[in-house]
């Protein structure tokens, strides 16, 4: 076992977070390693000293400061702050709803675009058909019969389909 690994395990061992197997391995290492033995000893000393850093407040004075702040509503929170301190599940639900709205918006914009394209193409096809029928009518010197108009419409639709394919 390397000393770096052993020292990480020592930190866990102090908090009873080491498996029995790892503890045996660690003991073997520490017994033969002065550096790790010193590390373990120092960490225990630090833990003992750390617990002496706890502070105390005078309850009466503290309550005298807190209660007026509550009465005056000093802690009134904005919507954003409320969301921030809300339970995790609520925040996650909000996030999911937000994400779903974004996806719906993107899909909506895309569908709208496709619909607009189709309408534009239909308009172009209709215009083509009208212009073509007028040109041909002029070249024939009179109005076209229904069959000629239908053929021209089919020709227009085919042109639009070819445009779609080429795109």
């Amino acid at each position, binding site marked *: 076992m390397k000393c770096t690994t052993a020292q990480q395990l020592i930190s866990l061992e102090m908090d009873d977070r080491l498996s029995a197997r790892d503890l045996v391995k660690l003991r073997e290492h520490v017994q033969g390693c002065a550096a790790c033995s*010193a590390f373990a000893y120092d960490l225990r000393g*630090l833990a*003992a*000293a750390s617990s002496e850093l706890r502070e*105390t407040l005078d309850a009466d004075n503290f309550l005298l400061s*807190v209660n007026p702040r*509550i009465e005056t509503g000093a*802690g009134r929170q904005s919507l954003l702050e*409320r969301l921030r*301190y809300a339970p995790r599940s609520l925040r996650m639900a909000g996030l999911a709803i937000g994400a779903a709205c974004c996806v719906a918006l993107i899909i909506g914009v895309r569908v709208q675009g496709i619909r607009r394209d189709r309408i534009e193409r239909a308009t172009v096809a209709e215009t083509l058909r009208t212009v073509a029928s007028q040109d041909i009518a002029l070249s024939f010197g009179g109005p076209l019969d229904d069959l000629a108009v239908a053929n021209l419409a089919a020709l227009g639709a085919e042109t639009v389909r070819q445009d779609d394919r080429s795109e």
Partner: protein
Amino acid sequence: MERVADSDAALISRCRDNDRDAFNEIVCRYMDRVITYVRRMVNSREDAEDIAQETFVRIYAGLRSFQSRSSLNTWVYRIATNLCIDYRRKNNRPDRQPVPLAGRGAQPGIEQVRADASAEPEARALRSELAQALDRAIADLPERLRTVVVLHDVNGLAYEEIAAIVGCPLGTVKSRLFHARAALRAALAPYLRGEEPIRLGNDRRGVEQ
């Protein structure tokens, strides 16, 4: 007859019924833990007290919507943590100016403090000196390490609670705690001689508190 202390859940329930005494009991129960934590996360005692007060104002405002999925303990620390973050963002300055450890080399080690335990006043003075040095060393730690070491080693929270407060995986808590302890040991090297052999697994707290 002495009244048995209510559980957190019972106090929350009483608070929801507008029982102000129940809220005051919550404040008394948590104020020392909050001030101990906040004092080490911000740069002045006055600001720390202000943040501690604000923490309880927020708790009062949020008690009705508090769902008991997490413990009150975790929730209190999370509010305090967020307020500390807000404070630092507003002030936009380092938490504390590093204070050099005066006369490092001349200070006695923890083991000497133990040995002199019988000499009560002197031992108390030495312990206090060591605690001050440790306090300064903790203040010099990066925030992510300091949070974990204060919550665990000073306030005695479990790894799982810290992970919930900080919002990181359990493995990250373990790793940060190791790095924080190693950094503190390096900073307090003159105080810690680490010469005595140690037996792991037994005598878990080698140094009596």
